[in-house]
């Protein structure tokens, strides 16, 4: 199974219930859609990439599951799996939290990276996983992403990054902020080589990740219903002393305000990206 390619650490992951109402395998037969409240067959839901059969609501999907759904079978070659977080500021409890999330997710960091093909077109893909430290970016995530772009630049390949992140990883302080710059210099080198970068924002993409690589694709896409924004809703409401509209900072809101190229249904993800990649395959 592809999941195992990214989980050297923990074998128990397949038995772990996700606390978002869905299940990794079909131990629980039914799942309740948090949006329309309809009770769905878990197996059916899983086959539809955790998109509700009734209302098209997008429930969370893990990074390995997304990788499997996106890439052509048998083509996935994980890269940069040996890079993991340290504790540069000796921040209290940080290592314990990392270990807990490694245990919980079977991943060793908040992003997984791989080379492979999508509908027969080669690409390098990085997928963040918000279950791991809320997908926050510290040195390891920054390094993996920057080197993903380096890897693609050397091989003249397009990059697709799926973002899912609460922002910078506070426990790494200013070093985490500088990862925004680090990934940016690598993106610019890839850009100057005339190569394609597609940024694909998923739920949630906020803070320092939103304010760096998530927003500077040649093409900026977002998944249906995703929360995307720089500042948190509560911070803004406290600052401007008014209530924000319900759809504020959703993918649809951003599309309306001209910040996105398109909002995509997860079930169309592979086909949609495959078409874009094909039209760039002469690059």
């Amino acid at each position, binding site marked *: 199974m592809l999941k195992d390619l990214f989980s050297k650490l923990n074998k128990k992951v397949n038995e772990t219930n996700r606390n978002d109402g869905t299940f990794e395998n079909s131990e629980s037969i039914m799942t309740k859609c948090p949006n329309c409240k309809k009770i769905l067959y878990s197996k059916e839901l899983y086959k539809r990439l955790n998109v509700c059969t009734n209302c098209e609501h997008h429930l969370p999907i893990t990074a390995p599951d997304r990788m499997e759904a996106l890439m052509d079978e048998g083509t996935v070659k994980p890269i940069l799996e040996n890079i993991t977080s340290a504790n540069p500021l000796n921040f209290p409890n940080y290592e314990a939290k990392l270990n807990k999330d490694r245990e919980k997710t079977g991943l060793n960091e908040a992003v997984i990276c791989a080379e492979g093909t999508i509908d027969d077109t080669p690409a390098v893909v990085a997928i963040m996983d918000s279950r791991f430290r809320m997908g926050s970016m510290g*040195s390891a995530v920054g390094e993996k992403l920057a080197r993903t772009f380096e890897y693609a630049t050397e091989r003249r390949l397009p990059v697709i990054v799926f973002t899912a992140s609460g922002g910078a990883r506070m426990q790494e302080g200013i070093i985490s902020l*500088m990862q925004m710059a680090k990934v940016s*210099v690598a993106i610019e080198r890839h850009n100057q080589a005339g190569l394609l970068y597609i940024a694909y924002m998923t739920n949630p993409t906020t803070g320092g990740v939103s304010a760096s690589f998530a927003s500077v694709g040649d093409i900026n896409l977002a998944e249906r219903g995703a929360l995307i924004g720089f500042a948190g809703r509560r911070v803004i409401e406290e600052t401007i002393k008014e209530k924000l509209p319900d759809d504020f900072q959703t993918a649809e809101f951003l599309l309306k305000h001209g910040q996105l190229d398109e909002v995509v249904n997860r079930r169309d993800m592979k086909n949609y990206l495959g078409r874009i990649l094909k039209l760039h395959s002469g690059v």
Partner: protein
Amino acid sequence: MTMAFEFEKPIYELEDKIGELEKYAAKNKLDLTKEISFLEKKVNDKKDEVYSNLTPWQRVEIARYAKRPTTLEYIEEIFEDFIEFFGDRVHSDDAAIVGGIASYHGTPVTVIGHQRGRDTKGNIHRNFGMAHPDGYRKALRLMKQADKFNRPVICFIDTKGAYPGKAAEERGQSESIARNLVEMAGLKVPVISIVIGEGGSGGALALGVCNRLLMLENATYSVISPEGAASILFKDASLKEIAAESLKITAADLKSFGIADEVIMEPKGGAHNDREAVISSLDEAVKRHLDELQSMDGQTLMDDRYDKYMNIGVFTEQS
């Protein structure tokens, strides 16, 4: 001098005592020179003790101090013939960021910086130096202009952060910051950024992808404010002193991480105590770094920036 910070209290108490003694001596025609000079020595010792043991939080207070020199003061004193330009060509002119062209020791340069107000009225006009996308886009416009005319870019960083507002989000706060990061990476001219006050997160970094990062001694640079970190990480906003300590936000910390290239020393107690001195130290440092960078061609400058940022990070790599 008036007391600016609570931690200076012991110094001012001693100074008050000297004042009283002087008055008493004059009134009673007594010679208390010995006693007074003893106290003056004590004041100096106290100053050394307080100012050389500043906690990170105390530096935050100095960095935010209303009377601390701001971007426009440095521009006026260090550059000649500054011509300010306005507007992002998209939506508005954002007064939280200023920029334009000037002569620096005879070299034409582009200079950009966050601008705080000097009083309440000024702060309302400047939005406390917290920019909207319009500000970052104005900055980018001026940087691209600098690139075209082969002018070095000098940026002053002094902001709590990007403004968290509704309109800011609608106009793409994230994109405007993100765009600056990648575009600054690709500039073919020297870029020097100087943190003169508070370097607040992404809003600071939007003027900070540079060849050389300089920091004033009491300036801070952080991914989140100490107050914010205290409430998020420690669930208690009153723990801001501890958060300031844990986050490692001082100029000395950033120098030790290899993020800041140089720390520019400030007068005892902070830049506001001797403006001329800090202006001249800053000028000297900027000039020295610019001289070094000006011998590099465009590609070398880009590569230099690339290497600078690719080298920042602490992680484990198993072979």
